[in-house]
């Protein structure tokens, strides 16, 4: 190998450490309090989220009650903290099934193509014709209000986004030369799909998962606000905003802090999503 040997210096140095993007870092930092509150609300919350204190009704934020109290004397801070678990649960449960089911289906139909793809495509087209919230509300109306039925409804509708994303990516990646190479190398279709195509095709779905989690929280809170989601006295942020709306003028803190928590949670997931989009993009 005399003439062809390239100099080894030609191989660029591996840039082993990737810098974590500021958006991702900020998102992860913001996520910490939510995770803590969701995992150990009892340790963090100074009071019970449901106990009344008639001696402390509608108190403005103070050292004793940093977020004030509501019309039953419940500590708003404690309710917001306990609400974290409910809303994080909503974020996860409204997205997990759609993500898993939609992605798998997308991977399969995108890879196999033909009639399976066409059939699922038609179903998906149909589902998106129904406004998301309307369909979820209609299903909840039929099944009855409550978180479980909300999850069922969201799952029935939410998979489409993931199916589209993953299917599109799989179709695109199926055409790439590395996927073709994998086939020519004699790899089984399962291996080509799972080992080669899916890891590359799933990225947008993971990024979307984050956005979807914030949308899931918003949806859960909206349904809670409308009385179709979590039921009182569950300290769910949307329900809390609804509880506090009569006091918007006289006691802004009752709905203000849960509203703030909702927004912050949304921003957190969006930031993580944006950050992940950067971090998961393969270098080329």
């Amino acid at each position: 190998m005399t003439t062809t040997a390239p100099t080894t210096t030609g191989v660029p140095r591996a840039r082993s450490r990737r810098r974590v993007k500021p958006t991702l870092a900020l998102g992860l930092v913001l996520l910490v309090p939510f995770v803590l509150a969701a995992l150990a609300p009892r340790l963090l919350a100074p009071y019970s989220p449901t106990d009344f204190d008639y001696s402390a009704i509608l108190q403005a934020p103070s050292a004793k009650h940093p977020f004030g109290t509501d019309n039953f004397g419940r500590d708003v801070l404690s309710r917001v903290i306990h609400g974290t678990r409910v809303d994080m649960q909503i974020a996860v449960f409204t997205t997990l099934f759609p993500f898993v089911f939609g992605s798998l289906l997308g991977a399969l139909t995108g890879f196999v193509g033909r009639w399976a793809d066409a059939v699922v495509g038609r179903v998906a087209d149909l589902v998106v014709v129904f406004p998301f919230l309307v369909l979820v509300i209609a299903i909840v109306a039929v099944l009855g209000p409550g978180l479980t039925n909300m999850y069922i409804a969201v799952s029935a509708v939410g998979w489409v986004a993931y199916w589209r994303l993953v299917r599109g990516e799989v179709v695109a990646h199926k055409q790439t030369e590395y996927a073709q190479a994998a086939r020519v190398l004699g790899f089984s279709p399962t291996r080509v799909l799972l080992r080669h195509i899916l890891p590359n095709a799933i990225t947008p779905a993971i990024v979307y998962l984050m956005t979807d989690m914030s949308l899931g929280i918003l949806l859960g809170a909206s349904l809670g606000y409308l009385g179709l989601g979590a039921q009182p006295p569950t300290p769910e942020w949307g329900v809390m905003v609804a509880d506090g709306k009569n006091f918007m003028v006289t006691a802004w803190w009752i709905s203000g802090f849960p509203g703030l928590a909702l927004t912050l949670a949304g921003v957190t997931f969006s930031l993580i999503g944006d950050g992940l989009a950067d971090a998961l993009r393969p270098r080329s």
Partner: protein
Amino acid sequence: MTAVEGDALLDVRGLTKTFPAPQGLVDRWRGKPRKVVRALTDVDLTVRRGETLGIVGESGCGKSTLARCLVRLYPADRGSVRYAGEDVLSLGGDELRRYHRRVQMIFQDPFSSLNPRMTVGQVLREVLTVHRLRPREGMDARVTELLSLVGLPAEAAGRLPHEFSGGQRQRIGIARALALEPECIVADELVSALDVSVQAQVVNLLLELQEKLGLTVLFVAHDLRLVRHLSHRVAVMYLGRVVEVAPTNVLFERPAHPYTRALLAAAPHLDPAHRVDAPALSGELPSPLDVPSGCPFRTRCPHAFDRCVTERPELLDVGAGQQVACHLFDPAASAGGR
């Protein structure tokens, strides 16, 4: 500069491949026949053991489709491909896997031909594992061996594709194909995405490996200079057909088909002294959705006559191992326009 006179390793007969063109609902309801892209039409070709067969042609001529049909990436519509006597198109399961061990493909794009999430070592080890080519203990040694075979250092195994230059990535692609210890390599535009100075490095590697491992190579490219340099024989394709096959020196020195002649003339010559004012060929390539009747080249051919419209010319032997699909060379016909 003599062609290798080996036995036929790959024998392609009447290979035809079409792709359906998208069709609207309305047209379907009206019962309009579905349009198809004619990628390959009745392709006959023989690749001999140990030789490098160059396949040239412009975009849309079907050369990449042919390559992909040969490695079973695309199912063919019609025709046969025999590899060492075995019917390739009917292979399935383990048989197909064994075929792929013998016939490998190397791809064009150094950026997309490697899975961006797998290190070079993982790429190579996966091949070895799936085909059970090495026991676990011997795996690392083999990976190093393969890397050094293509001129890459052993530490390259730990890196991801994006850490390599284009030329290095093509080397990795070659190593991946070589991991299977194939007899035959189908190289689709192997170096066309690389800069000239790097092209030469990869070309040299290919030459060297071919010598060392006795590979048969199907070299698909549009760069005539490269094809001329590397190939023992060359097949020229136009609109899904093979229009001429000949030993390299014959083809470049005595091109027979009017298209081959135009193609050679159109390729910019490196000597500024050889300048021509008029273009070698006028007109544009017809749509592969709407291939002309008879000879596909007749719409641009300066010699076209009536028969070219009605009758499709067959690939005929014209001596010295040269085959041409052109009515001008049909001894049965009176017209002789050479």
